[in-house]
């Protein structure tokens, strides 16, 4: 199904020719284009020459052994770290020098490996915070409770419940986020990220700590989210059933470098990937 797409559009820098995007997204501009991305921490190169293109409605996977630099890539894409080298284009806009908040406004939302919710606020407030930039009224309207406050808050309330209903969580709206069970906290992070109205959703180990039936439900929900919102999703995950089950393109990272890219079938049979995960076969 996915098809090879050549990107030799710059004569100076050789472009990688092994980025996969699904066939249905070929006519549209990609949602994300990372070129020669790299970051050094002091003398340590954490990520080097990372290239990736993600199609408009693609579900992409980022896998690799522990410490390969997967979360660092997410932190680079969301500008938690400023890259030392390379460019990141979101919807064709260069994000050079932008802050995390500005990149979010361009349409990149994320969840975190170690859950980062607003623990002391209610579930509903967490989702409304995701919708922060869609709620349009200022500080003065809020303090004086002008009509715009009541109107916008009502719309936000309805929208928050609607988003929570994706995971059947609308009954938990009044609960304190910090007291939710682990799985529900992970789902709430996804809902909060969706609240920002993203075009690219980055999920950092969404299935961590979930049992097989919860994981299966999550897989369905990820596909449901992609189909409903028509957005691209990129996920880091160690659960290979999930990755191979729903990802259309997979990028394998090891020691900060991309060692393979392709469809799940390509990756599964790629000897370099097998070596990275299991080590080299000893010659008999």
């Amino acid at each position: 199904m996915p098809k090879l797409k050549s990107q030799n559009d710059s004569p100076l820098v050789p472009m990688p020719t092994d980025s996969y995007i699904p066939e249905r997204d070929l006519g549209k501009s990609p949602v994300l284009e990372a070129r020669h991305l790299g970051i050094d921490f002091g003398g340590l190169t954490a990520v080097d020459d990372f290239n990736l293109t993600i199609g408009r409605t693609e579900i992409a996977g980022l896998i690799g052994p522990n410490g390969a630099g997967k979360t660092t890539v997410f932190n680079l894409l969301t500008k938690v770290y400023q890259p030392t080298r390379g460019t990141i284009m979101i919807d064709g806009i260069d994000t050079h020098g932008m802050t995390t908040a500005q990149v979010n406004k361009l349409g990149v939302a994320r969840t975190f490996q170690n859950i980062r919710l607003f623990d002391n606020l209610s579930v509903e407030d967490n989702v409304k915070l995701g919708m922060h930039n869609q709620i349009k009224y200022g500080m003065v309207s809020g303090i004086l409770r002008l009509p715009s406050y009541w109107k916008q808050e009502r719309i936000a309330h309805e929208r928050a419940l609607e988003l929570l209903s994706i995971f059947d969580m609308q009954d938990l709206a009044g609960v304190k986020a910090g007291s939710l069970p682990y799985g529900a906290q992970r789902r709430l992070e996804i809902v909060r990220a969706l609240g920002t109205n993203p075009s690219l959703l980055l999920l950092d180990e969404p299935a961590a700590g979930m049992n097989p039936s919860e994981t299966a439900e999550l897989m369905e929900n990820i596909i449901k989210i992609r189909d409903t919102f028509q957005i691209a999703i990129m996920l880091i995950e160690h659960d290979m059933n999930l990755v191979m089950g729903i990802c259309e393109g997979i990028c394998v990272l090891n020691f900060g470098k991309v060692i393979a890219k392709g469809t799940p079938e390509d990756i599964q049979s790629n000897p370099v990937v097998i070596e990275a995960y299991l080590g080299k076969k000893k010659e008999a």
Partner: protein
Amino acid sequence: MKKLKKTTAIDFATYAGVILAFVVITVMKDQGMLTRSLKGQLVPICCYIVMAVSLNLTVGVLGELSLGHAGFMSVGAFSGVVAAMGLQSAIPSEPLRLAIALVVGAAFAAMAGAIVGVPVLRLRGDYLAIVTLAFGEIIKELINCLIVGVDSQGLHLIFNATGTKGVSDLGLLEGGKVLIKGAQGATGTQTIASFTAGFILIMVSLVVVLNLVRSRSGRAIMALRDNRIAAESVGINVTKYKLMAFVTSAALAGAAGALYGLNFSNLVATKFDFNTSILVLVFVVLGGLGNIWGSILAATVLTILPEALRGFDDYRMLIYAVVLILVMLATNNPQLKALLAKLIPHSRKGEEANA
């Protein structure tokens, strides 16, 4: 799983409590049931309540430590006194002049807040505590050097940095008045502050703080406190909302300072020193971080307590400290909390919502 109670109910209970207390105290005052010392405490208590509520916005809601809140009070007090006294002939109506003085005090304190906040709130860590601590001391020294007078030509102002200048250097025309005399502070201020004005100021600051906290901006401020990285990831402008909370907090402290300054005919800058900042911080911590009605209660009790303990003479401050420690231990005791919850079912819900 903890269910959050509807926060609006707690807000209304807070407003109702303040209004009720105001009515009761006004009636008692008119009946002559208050002692003279307590009557003299009424306006300062109002000021300290506003100070505690406003500092709670920075410390409890935003989660940044400020050790110079008295500095903003000082800026508000002296600019308010100058405004009220300078306009004495132009505006004869006392309540109107008081209102203008409060607004001027708030505006100047807000400006000071912005000057401190703009560079410091960009940093992460404990820098705000250090800089506000320094700010409080700097303001004290600056006002000690200030000589201000007014006459028919307008305001005259000297900055007496070398210590060689005096009141005569102001060059006041006949009929002019000296408002601030350097280290002697503001003297001969007409005391136009009233308990009613204090009550109105408390209500205004409650409306500002509570409505801000329950709005879009307040949510963003609390999000920064709970998790800055997550807040940035949903597109919240960190510096903007930190500054919003900090400047609002400074403005309210300035208004409280103006009211305080107009309650005494003499006021020196050393009144607003580090001890005052810490005192207000104690109100906030004791009342509970982010808990507005707790701040009001703590400010009231801890302002009255030293006066009420006058009978103990030399042991007054010792007993004050012991009471403080006992209250802190008691409010942290799980058994006592459970007992309280059984006795007053509402208090438990309130505590959870404000936890």
